């Protein structure tokens, strides 16, 4: 069944918050980079990219909390598997630094 409807209404603030944050950081960082490249512009740009990458994970986390409340254990199990995979990705990325 299509389960997105009311859940997405509840969660709309999460992507909206992340969109606002990463848009502001990337926009300001880009302006700062064009005007005067340096630690400030680099920090804003890197911070914006990290916030951007965090957005889908945050949405997934809130979705899981909502499904725990609804006792939709199949969904929660699938989300936990996805979260475990993402943890492996982060570990692989950390070892490349």
């Amino acid at each position: 069944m299509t389960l997105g409807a009311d859940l997405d209404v509840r969660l709309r603030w999460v992507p909206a918050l992340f969109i606002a944050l990463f848009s502001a950081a990337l926009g300001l960082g880009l302006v700062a980079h064009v005007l005067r490249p340096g630690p400030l512009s680099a920090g804003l740009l890197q911070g914006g990219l990290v916030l951007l990458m965090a957005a889908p994970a945050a949405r997934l986390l809130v979705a899981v909390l909502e499904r725990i409340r609804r006792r939709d254990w199949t969904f929660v199990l699938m989300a936990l598997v996805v979260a475990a995979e993402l943890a492996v990705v982060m570990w692989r990325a950390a070892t490349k630094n």
Partner: protein
Amino acid sequence: MSAATIPLLLSIMAAGGLAGCLGALLGIGGGVFLVPFLNVVLGLDIRSAAGISLMTVIATSTIVSGGAANRHVINLRLGLLLQIPAIAGGLLGAETVEWLTPRTLYVIFACVTGIVALVMLTRLDRRNVILDDTVSPGALGGRYYEQESGRDVVYRLRRLPAALGIAFSGGILSGLLGIGGGILQVPALNAWCGVPMRAAAAMTAAMIGITALGSAPIYYARGRIAAPLAAAAVIGVIAGSRAGLWMSPRAKARWLKLLMAAVLALVSSAYFYRSFTA
């Protein structure tokens, strides 16, 4: 002034806008349009283009998942299930991309886009919906209001193993080429698994941000993502995605498929040519 000049940043922003619009409209993230622009037109290394593209795929997906336009069409349960093989594929793609030559990546890009364009053209009139809304959609199917028929429609998922395999392959493509995986997932779910085009596009667009997380952090850690160029592309994509979301409910499925097939055929031709001249 750094190497990222204002004209360069503006051109990337404009390309990001177009990619975001088409990506939100077609559910494929826009990377399939942005990577050729960055790689073929601007001359960036294909892996750097892929890294930037992955960032725009995440941005498009975040905007689409937060928008109201297609909310009733997104099948979150099926979408999440397909993320399990898709993320594994994304990780595999990101781990192997450094071993492959650019020419190999061009050939993969050309073949994938060419095959998907052909699949789209052969399935132009296939709708997959059941107009009797009393029929159960099953555990992984869906039900939504369809403007074209003016009523609630139902669809059922067919061939679950094929859907999982498609998601895994889409993840590998996302990790290798930075194109989000939707390019494969949307037409394949529509053609082989019984998911209507609009439902496949809306669900995939909302979920490919998670697929891209299977590879984007690895590109980032490798230093493959030039932050100013990625920022310009993402800002363009944010504006373009909103335009695509506005257009999505108003566009006819047949025209969406034709548009997608035409763009993919063009991209395929460009990469076949590039693979011979590289």
